[in-house]
């Protein structure tokens, strides 16, 4: 298994022992050497004590999806060691702390064991108990750098950056790295058959997580009111907004140009967003599936009352308890039709942190243009893991689209304002902001039971007219949402593949694998709901369409069948729903099973 820049390393740690920053140091150093890297946290719903894993895929070809099979496992958690030994591919390596001898049942004849006296060395070299713990982690990174030929200067630079302002921490960290390197140099044949070699494959890419990108996108999108309730895996969206805003949104007198309210629950969080946007601010909330469930009633009100809302849904495995720290794309149906009555919502599907940034910023424009909720369908894998992606971009010539708003000047020219009049024929009415004009433009917001002038009525005809206008608005939405990503100029196959969000990286890899086997399939990446016209065209142009998604019931497939009114037999689901990110291999095997040999 000699391979350069193509392997998977898994770290098995105990939650809460400071391993995260050491493991990140490892991943980032490879990224800094110009090699594509894809780290993923596999962590428990726990603060301290349970096993946690960090998996790093290194891929010369730039494949960033998860890959099955571990080439090297660093196991410093006795609790999970049995499982960790089993995860290593035959011919792979198992790095462990040999301060205590390895139990006989953990010995496999088909893998190589590298014992490093992490605890013994750190206990000898450091006196502080916390340092002894932390530097064990840095020491194994040092050892790996020797085994895999990671450049020492890169690691050193990263430590200097990490501890800028706390310089006295640099030396003991560097020492820990060196302890690991020295041990390998003196005791173990190095480098391993697979290793890293400097490349120039990452360009100006950045390494960041989707939640931070969403938070930053909201700052750029002009959000001023944030209301949220803590829930994994979305919590860090609000936290990221807060930390960016704390730097970028402070008035000259030291006061904040934003308000963040930690609400009492998700019901209140979405209510606050609705109140803020009704009152002319840009506002958002971030939550996960259980939160979206609670927000259903308000989402319906916002749909009918035509209030802009931005909701970032970082999806996770359902239901509330169970596997809240595992990933899925399983809120699709819930989000698309959230609430009672005839409701449909605009959804955006980012697949990288860059797109999280762009779509979050865009969603504020879209929400105000369409006067309706916009949900950004991220997930735990995208939100909480670091991804190599394009740098963020902002065009300073860009103006924020506040949509149709009548100001006092507009109102002066109008004889009678009608909040729900379809003045322009696109189904989108004009709104007014409270306080705009002393005598014109005021009205009482209600769900329905009102006419075009927002006057209370229970007249059936008025109700139906309103519902039909909302349908017209939905059609307008199709022209404004993000177009899908095409993978070919001209269709070459009768078989098509549709995917979205974090299934993208593995899907693209699977398409390559299939091509190598002689199967060339057309592909399209969905980026929004309602489906853009390009989606119906793609479906219409293919006999069979594989729909790749990470849930049990093929929720996107269901949405396609319902919304495009297509024979269900033409769609075949390709699924993964065990809580782990989907792999290219899974996709390929499932598609192959439907293809003639």
């Amino acid at each position, binding site marked *: 298994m000699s391979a350069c820049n193509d392997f998977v390393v898994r770290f098995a740690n105990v939650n809460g022992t400071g391993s995260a920053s050491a493991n990140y140091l490892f991943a980032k150093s490879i990224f800094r050497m110009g090699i594509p890297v894809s780290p993923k946290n596999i962590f428990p719903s726990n603060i301290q004590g349970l096993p946690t894993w960090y998996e790093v895929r290194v891929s010369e070809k730039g494949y960033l999806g998860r890959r099955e099979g571990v080439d090297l496992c660093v196991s410093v958690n006795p609790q999970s060691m049995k499982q960790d030994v089993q995860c290593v591919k035959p011919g792979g390596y198992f790095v462990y702390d040999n301060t205590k001898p390895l139990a006989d049942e953990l010995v496999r004849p088909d893998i190589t064991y590298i014992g490093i006296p992490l605890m013994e060395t750190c206990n000898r070299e450091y006196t502080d108990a916390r340092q002894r713990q932390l530097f064990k982690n840095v020491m194994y990174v040092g050892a790996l750098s020797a085994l895999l030929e990671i450049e020492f200067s890169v690691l050193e630079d990263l430590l200097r950056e990490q501890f800028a302002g706390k310089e006295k921490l640099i030396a003991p960290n560097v020492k820990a790295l060196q302890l690991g390197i020295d041990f390998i140099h003196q005791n173990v044949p190095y480098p391993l058959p697979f290793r890293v070699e400097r490349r120039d494959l990452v360009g100006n*890419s950045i390494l960041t997580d989707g939640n931070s990108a969403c938070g930053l996108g909201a700052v750029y999108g*002009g959000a001023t009111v944030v209301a949220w309730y803590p829930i994994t895996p979305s919590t860090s969206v609000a936290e990221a907004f807060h930390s960016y805003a704390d730097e970028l949104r402070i*008035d000259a007198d030291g006061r904040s*140009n934003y308000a963040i*309210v930690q609400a009492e629950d998700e019901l209140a969080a*979405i*209510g606050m967003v*609705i109140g803020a946007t009704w009152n002319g601010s840009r506002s958002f909330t971030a939550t996960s599936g259980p939160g979206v469930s609670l927000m259903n009633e308000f989402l319906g009100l916002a749909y009918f009352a035509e209030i802009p809302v931005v909701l970032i849904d970082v999806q996770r495995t359902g239901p509330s308890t169970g596997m809240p720290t595992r990933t899925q794309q399983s809120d699709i149906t819930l989000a698309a039709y959230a609430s009672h009555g005839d409701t449909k919502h605009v959804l955006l599907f980012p697949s990288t942190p860059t797109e999280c940034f762009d779509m979050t910023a865009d969603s504020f424009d879209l929400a105000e243009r369409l006067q309706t909720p916009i949900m950004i369908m991220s997930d735990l894998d995208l939100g909480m893991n670091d991804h190599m992606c394009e740098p963020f971009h902002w065009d300073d010539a860009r*103006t924020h689209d506040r949509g149709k708003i009548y100001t006092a000047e507009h109102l002066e020219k109008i004889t009678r304002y009608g909040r729900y009049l379809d003045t322009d024929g696109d189904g989108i009415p004009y709104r007014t902001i409270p306080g705009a004009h002393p005598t014109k433009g005021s009205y009482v917001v*209600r769900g329905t039971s009102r006419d075009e002038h927002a006057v209370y009525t229970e007249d059936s005809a008025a109700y139906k007219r309103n519902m039909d206008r909302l349908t017209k608005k939905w059609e307008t939405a199709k022209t404004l949402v993000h177009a899908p990503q095409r993978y070919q100029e001209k269709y070459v196959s009768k078989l098509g593949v549709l995917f979205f969000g974090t299934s993208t990286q593995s899907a693209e890899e699977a398409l390559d694998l299939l091509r190598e086997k002689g199967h060339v399939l057309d592909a399209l990446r969905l980026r929004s709901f309602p489906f853009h016209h390009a989606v119906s065209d793609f479906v219409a142009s293919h006999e069979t369409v594989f729909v790749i998604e990470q849930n049990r019931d093929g929720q996107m497939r269901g949405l396609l069948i319902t919304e495009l009114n297509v024979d269900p037999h033409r769609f075949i689901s390709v699924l993964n729903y065990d809580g782990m990110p989907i792999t290219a291999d899974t996709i390929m095997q499932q598609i192959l099973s439907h293809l003639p040999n």
Partner: protein
Amino acid sequence: MSFVRPQFRHPHLPKNELGYTTREYEGSLSTLCAGCGHDSIGAAIVQACFEMNIEPHQVAKLSGIGCSSKTPAYFLGNSHGFNTVHGRMPSVATGANMANRDLIYLGVSGDGDTASIGMGQFVHAVRRNLNMTYIVMNNGCYGLTKGQDSATADMGSKSKAGSVNPFEAIDLCGLALELGASFVAQSFSGDKQQLIPLIKAAMHHHGFAFLNVISPCVTFNNNVGSTKSYDYVRQHVQATATMDFVPPATEITTSYAEGADANVTMHDGSLLHLHKLAQGWDPSDRMSAIEALQRSRMEGKVLTGLVYYDDKGKDLHDVLNTSARPLNSIPMTELCPGSAKLREINAGLQ
């Protein structure tokens, strides 16, 4: 209730300092039952805003669901209103308030909307000291679904159908005090003299002003044996004080007998005169207020008036240290950090 609101107005209706008559503060025709206490409260709101010379469009009125929550359509027609979902008015008011600190927020709710389905949001709005006036039109029953007991119905109170409520009532004023509310008052829809100055004071208060108004349901809860009927309330009402509200910068010319009165100076310099104050009563002392509420409850009396007042609290904007400018007025160009900053952020992630 009337079926057609007469368009005729007296040609010499008095005008306030802004040049508005009360007509500019009225809303559309009420669809509540004739004699409903809620309409009296609406009329008191109109009168209070007229007398305080409030620009009607500077008020945002919000409500939940129920008879009470329909009323914002019936007053302040030049104000924007938001009929939200059941029990969730406080969160919408919170968001609205965060977006624009300069408007006056008037929340209207009912006993079902506040003490049952909306209890969670109510208590959190109180503890955040959101700068708003929160009026509960409290009739002890669910009027819009035909008279079921609400959580504020007194134990032993008899419904129109004859059933007796077996559960303890939730005392919203007591709860608000417990949660640290900075303005707590109670009144009766039939006592306009007391209600109007209390609404004025509440709207001037900087922070969360809670006003629980007993407002009999003439259709479903005005029977003998009900403790929220007009007759019962009139017989058992115990006013802590009669009062006048004096807006800021107005010279006080009236004098009162010493010892029986108290002046409450409000955040903005306005004054609330309390006359004939009950013995041992100190509206600035939370303990005294809690004790008085509890005692009147034990005695089966309905305590009305200003129960508690504290002008030193910080409202949510103060706590969050938000900009003095309304957040919804800050131009996007100022809110967006621009591309140069983004390049810096990118560099940090490379």
